[in-house]
């Protein structure tokens, strides 16, 4: 067996891949929640739509995006491989098991991860796929009066099917024409079942990261009297509370403030 294969096929090597992809996905969440906070701006989606347009048309981000999709798939695949191997290590189960020797989330990472994978598939097919590969997302035109700074939005139907976006200045008006993802967000978040599913998924991500973030550092071998408490704090408060709560508030707020 080659050295490379021996390293990454070993139980520790597979754990290393889980930890690294997991932490990469964690860093993505920070960016994702930061950008999506623009949904809370009362500007008829101007900032959010410009941001979505930027993400899909800036080449370096597109490269990172593909790295991200790969990470999701590798993390999922290795989780399945490791789970199968772990199940095989105990062919006959116990009649009586106890649950007080480990935290619930640490024993149910597979269940939480499965919920999250289902969520990611639904989430990406709803927004990402429709935005990038279909005409299901309408366009909008934002006209900003450069002297007063007031922005007004109007419907816009592109004449050419190849139209993607445009920024022009006419008669002291800045005209921005972009896909109106915000409209699709509003549509999705007006469905109560969708909102419930999103909130449950965010609860799952909270528990998943409550264990996963600090566990990744343990797997990497970084345990330190001084720094592990910092990792625990960040894993608990940022990744298990602030980020999932911010995400969960988006569908909730949109649902209760819908017209």
């Amino acid at each position, binding site marked *: 067996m080659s*050295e490379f294969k*021996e*390293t990454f096929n*070993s*139980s*520790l*090597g*597979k*754990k*290393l891949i889980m930890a690294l992809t997991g932490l990469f996905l964690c860093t993505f969440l920070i960016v994702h929640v930061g950008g999506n906070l623009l949904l809370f701006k009362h500007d008829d989606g101007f900032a959010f739509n410009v941001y979505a347009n930027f993400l899909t048309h800036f080449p370096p981000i597109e490269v990172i995006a593909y790295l991200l999709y790969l990470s999701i798939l590798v993390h999922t695949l290795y989780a399945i491989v*490791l789970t199968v*191997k*772990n199940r*095989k*290590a*105990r*062919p*006959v*189960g*116990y*009649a*009586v*098991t*106890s649950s007080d*020797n*480990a*935290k619930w989330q*640490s*024993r149910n*990472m597979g269940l939480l991860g499965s919920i999250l994978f289902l969520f990611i598939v639904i989430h990406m097919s709803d927004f990402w796929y429709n935005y990038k590969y279909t005409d299901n997302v309408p366009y909008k035109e934002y006209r900003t009066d450069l002297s007063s700074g007031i922005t007004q939005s109007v419907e816009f139907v592109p004449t050419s099917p190849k139209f993607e976006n445009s920024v022009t200045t006419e008669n002291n008006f800045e005209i921005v024409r972009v896909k109106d993802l915000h409209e699709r967000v509003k549509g999705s978040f007006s469905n109560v079942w969708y909102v419930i599913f999103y909130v449950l998924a965010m609860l799952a991500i909270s528990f998943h990261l409550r*264990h996963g973030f*600090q*566990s990744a550092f*343990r*797997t*990497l*071998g*970084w*345990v330190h009297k001084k720094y592990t408490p910092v990792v625990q704090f960040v894993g608990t408060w940022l990744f298990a509370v602030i980020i999932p709560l911010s995400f969960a508030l988006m569908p909730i707020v949109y649902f209760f403030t819908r017209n």
Partner: protein
Amino acid sequence: MRFEVLNRNTTQDFRLRTTDFIKMSNGNMNLTLKVWRQKNAQTAGKFVNYKAEGISPDMSFLEMLDVVNEGLIHKGEDPIHFDHDCREGICGMCSLYINGHPHGPKRAITTCQLHMRTFHDGETVTIEPWRAGPFPVIKDLAVDRSAFDRIQQAGGYVSVNTGGVPDANEIAIPKVIADEAFNSATCIGCGACVAACKNASAMLFVSAKIKQFSLLPQGQPERYRRVQSMVAQMDAEGFGSCTNTGACEAECPKEIKLTNIAGMNLDYFSAKLFRQEELHEQGHGEG
């Protein structure tokens, strides 16, 4: 002394304690045991119920099983097979998965140190063997733990030169390092970590056996080759992977810390990814 302390508490507390003493002196616990019986690794096993009657609360769990076995032998039945040796918590031979816990419900003790006063009269106690593919059942509650021996043989040693006896304390070792290494070295290799882990992972055992040497100067020459050999053997035996649940640490009779596993990971990745001169493949003589 004990009465003095208790007398200072309320009278009600005192009365409760007195009844406890009466119960203990009578030694009249009756239990139902649900025991895993299995002829050998090839045949399927099943649970069989036994009555354990007139059990003193002062008995250890193994002594209780001795009493039950004596009854079985008198009746001409096959006694329950279970592993035991020193019966003072240091040999790592006793096992038993009792009511969902390796070595029973109490923390930081082995089964031989578990007393029957932990259970209450009339309780049903479920006793199972360690469950793991690499620990096949030999008979009933006794499992074959030679997988641990093979992992140890793969690298759990230090090489020592023959010759004159070196002076004691010739090599300076800081107290904190000596203490840490000793904590890891207290692992008795009983396999409770494997039994407790939902993945049947042996990483707590393996990491303790690695760290007891990797911290000390005497362990340095083989440090990076040891971790690779032992992890390779651990994988070959078919143990699961660690998911850092911490169940092993919670159930370990010697309270071996989960941090050992992180230490093992660090040495392993360091060896595999950054120390090409230490690569496992490049023939260090291990066979």
